[in-house]
């Protein structure tokens, strides 16, 4: 069951739906591409014209703040036009089917859908049904996959730990309902992590979880031994009402990450969480805000990784490794003074003529243009 749907005839990324079926080389390419975008955010001018003239629709059938915002920022920084559609309160509640919603948006000549949906397989379905020129990025489908979250976590891990091959990673919490966990496990295994361990009570683990390529522990104290990366998952409140857990306090007692328990892991272990965090339920505030926490770094990295995935899916990403960096110089409005060897302007760009052939074109404010 390989998923070639995601790749075009040349084996390049066309849709980004799941980590499954993607090679280590491709995942590494995403990380490398993201790295070249990562510096950008700190500059005053935060734009490159890679997706100029492209229209991206954020199609959110489920509420989200962080993911939608970072996708929006990523698209804006690539100079795309972005439309946010919050379908949870729009078309489908009027009885319109998923397919009709897609057909209507297609008719508006969009180039990319970023989709979040409460049902597993929704992004696959849209990728199968949509017009061939449109790319689909999965921003989370049901309990299936959340591949950009996994890649931004891989990016964060690589930033700090450099190499995956010696890493032991623990994923703690509601694995059963977590699309994040499934994508993390696949990404870590593809990138060659030494061990992926899941730690949860049986009620929060799917059947045959070991078939995903993980070791299983039901005990946090035992499970944290020798761990380099601690990934906490959010515990939804409704898990209590559906008899999966007795109470938040008992969960915290058994599986909540405290400073004391974190000491069991390696001294240089990092703590991650896809957010939003439930302080005092799955994680103690002292840990969440502590020195080993990289939770906010994850959020920042989300933008660069999503930029990379979007640019790659639209086949406009510059080859990784070719970057002397996409440096936008703070305050500089003259692209001509930028170092050469960077990103090319897209054909048809009316400002392109004023740039050196190899120039990097930043578009301050999008319309003010380059002198």
């Amino acid at each position, binding site marked *: 069951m390989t998923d070639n749907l995601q790749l075009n005839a040349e084996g390049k990324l066309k849709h980004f739906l799941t980590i499954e079926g993607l090679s280590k080389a491709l995942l590494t390419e995403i990380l490398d591409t993201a790295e070249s975008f990562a510096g950008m955010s700190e500059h005053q001018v935060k734009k490159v014209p890679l997706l100029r003239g492209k229209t991206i629709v954020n199609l959110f059938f489920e509420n989200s703040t962080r993911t939608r915002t970072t996708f929006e920022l990523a698209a804006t920084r690539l100079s795309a036009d972005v439309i946010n559609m919050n379908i949870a309160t729009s078309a489908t509640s009027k009885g319109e089917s998923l*397919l009709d919603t897609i057909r209507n948006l297609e008719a508006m000549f969009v180039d990319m859908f970023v989709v979040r949906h409460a049902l597993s*397989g929704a992004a696959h379905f849209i990728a199968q049904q949509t017009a061939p020129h449109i790319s689909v990025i999965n921003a989370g489908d049901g309990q299936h996959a959340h591949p950009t979250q996994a890649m931004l976590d891989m990016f964060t891990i690589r930033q700090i730990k450099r190499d995956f091959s010696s890493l032991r990673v623990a994923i703690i919490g509601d694995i059963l309902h977590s699309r994040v966990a499934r994508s993390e496990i696949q990404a870590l295994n593809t990138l060659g992590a030494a061990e992926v361990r899941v730690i949860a009570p049986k009620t929060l683990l799917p*059947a045959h979880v070991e*078939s995903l390529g993980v070791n299983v522990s039901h005990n946090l104290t035992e499970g944290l031994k020798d761990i380099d990366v601690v990934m906490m998952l959010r515990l939804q409140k409704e898990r209590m009402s559906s008899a999966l857990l007795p109470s938040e306090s008992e969960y915290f007692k058994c599986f909540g990450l405290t400073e004391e328990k974190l000491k069991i892991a390696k001294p240089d272990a990092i703590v991650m969480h896809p957010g939003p965090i439930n302080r005092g339920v799955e994680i103690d505030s002292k840990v969440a805000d502590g020195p080993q926490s990289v939770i906010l770094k994850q959020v920042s990295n989300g933008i660069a990784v999503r930029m990379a995935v979007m640019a790659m899916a639209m086949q406009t990403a510059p080859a990784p490794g070719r970057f002397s960096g996409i440096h936008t110089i703070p305050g500089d409005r003259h692209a001509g003074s930028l170092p050469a060897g960077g990103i090319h302007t897209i054909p048809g760009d009316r400002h392109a003529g004023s740039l050196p052939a190899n120039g990097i074109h930043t578009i301050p404010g999008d319309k003010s243009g380059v002198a």
Partner: protein
Amino acid sequence: MKIRIDHGRIIDPANDIDRVGSVYIKHGKIVSVTDEPDSFKPDIVINAENQIVCPGFIDLSTRLRDMGHSRKATFKSEVTAAAAAGITTLCLQPDTVPVIDTPAVVELIKELAEKAGYPQIYAVGALTQKLEGAELSSMLSLKQAGCIAVGNANQPVKNLLILRRAMEYAASHDLLLMFRSNDFWLGNNGCAHEGAVATRYGLPSIPEAAETIALAQCLELAELTGCRVHFGQLSCKRSVIKIHQAKKYGLKVSADVAIHQLHLTENDMRPFDSAYHVLPPLRTEDDKHYLRQGLAGSTINSICSDHQPHDLDAKLGAFPETEPGMSSLETLLPLMLKLVAQHAITLEQGIACLSANPARVLRLNSGALTPGFSADVCIFDPELEWQVNSENWKSQGVNTPFWGQTLKGRVTHTLQAGKIIHRL
């Protein structure tokens, strides 16, 4: 009208016949097999050379839609498909719209069946009103109107006391209960087998225990109430074991399996392809193996199509929101023959599972080429290959995972009560 079918290999498991010869039909009844009756002058002669002549198939679980679901399929479209599949008798599950819980609906079904030119459709009456599992249906009235059995289709009877009462009442009127084992709570609105594949794809899943626990409860109640029970559409190993033990213990129960469960497993599911969305879900290789063994050893005595045609929209969506079920009348014979080719069962067993055995479950005088029986006959070419495509397909529902595949074995003639209802 007199019909003679010549030169075919006649396989009639109920009468232990397997030889080349002729079948003689007069006034809609079988007159003789092999031996020519005196002064028999046929109006029609069918040459069945290199073909197999067997009793018409009896399908224990079918949906024809129509009425409130005519966008999915109609009696007209589906009986044409059934005839093309060699099926001469159908059991219609009660989850029609409206539900088969009053004699009026049974009458309506009879009328639609007559109009479609396919009278041998037997309604299964609802066990509980509106299939809600709360109040008993008027089972005696349903029986008198023509219902061949009662059942609750795929709907659960959550309260075991109500199930007990319903079974006692059914037993009082000597009604067969057709039971689909599925514990509502353990099923948990799942759409795939609880195993490695559902875990990988994050699909809400159904454990085997949802089936086996409901089955075990119903077996206990069968003993308590004396109700005759037929367990429909088994999907897993432990169900086969439980039925085997119950039969050994002496309980009067029977069971069937849907044809696709004998061929497909969770591993065959293409990612999020709704054609594979069925209930009970496709399970593991081990389960498939045991279902086949159960068939070979007669623990499971019938194969049904579990035909559920859908309109395109019903299958267009994210996997969990699509409607379950396959359109499976027309793949029934070739898939049965594939079991024979794979040495899972013998050809005689395969034919018995589609004719004599379901007839016994329903206590019908059919499913055999016995003189005096209604002339329900299927003639098929076991070697004829055909592609599943819109040219060959009759059902209005094209929701089959076998679409586009080339299958072996095709029905050339179907006779229902001596009337030729299908000719290739």
